[in-house]
């Protein structure tokens, strides 16, 4: 009969990892792009409905889109960013997601 090596660890101490470092991912941005036909009031209404932002914040974001051609309207986890992007596209706005640089 051959010798069976022990199957059970003598101790688990060496297997316990003390390294608790957290890897943080760069956030994903939801970007809304300017276009020449969408009324400004519609953009404000859509931002308020989808994100629940205040009127002031929605107006500020709308003006950023208008003057700079684009604005980041939300940042965070990728899945939520894509979900918000879809909601904006369903509402007829030109929106995309991109990872923060």
């Amino acid at each position, binding site marked *: 009969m051959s010798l069976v090596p022990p199957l059970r660890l003598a101790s688990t101490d060496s297997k316990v990892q003390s390294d608790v470092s957290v890897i943080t991912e760069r956030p994903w941005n939801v970007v809304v792009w300017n276009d020449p036909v969408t009324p400004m009031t519609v953009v404000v*209404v859509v931002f308020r409905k989808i994100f629940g932002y205040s009127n002031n914040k929605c107006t500020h974001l709308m003006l950023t889109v208008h003057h700079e051609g684009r604005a980041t309207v939300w940042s965070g986890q990728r899945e939520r960013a894509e979900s918000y992007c879809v909601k904006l596209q369903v509402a007829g706005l030109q929106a995309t997601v991109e990872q923060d640089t």
Partner: protein
Amino acid sequence: MAGRLFARRRDGRIEVRLNDAGRSAVREVFVHVVAAERSDDHEWHVALQTPINPSSDDDDPLSTLARQNEIATNAELAIMTVSEQYLNDAEAWAWLSTLQVALRSTAVANGILSDERLESCPPEVLADIRTIQQFLFDLAACL
């Protein structure tokens, strides 16, 4: 407030003040959005397939399916309520979203990507755009 196409009433509902010609115009827009979502050959179809994440070769199929379903659902709700005199908030949102999708699709289908292109586009296209914008201005003011 005279001349507004939509008005928020004290009971919270939104009154649709469109005449027969106005309702016919919005019905046509709503029908086009449903058709564009269902047919690859529709001139607006490409505008409804814009990328979600341009850095990726393909978008998540679940996200594109969700977009397709929600656009079609909004357009179908808008068609179902096109003859109503009063809209609730959900119905008004469906109207607004569908009109806005139609507006952007009209612009994309005609290559209108700048203010200069808008001003130099054919008069009939410009008239369509101005009509949809007027609906949107007045409806957004109620929401």
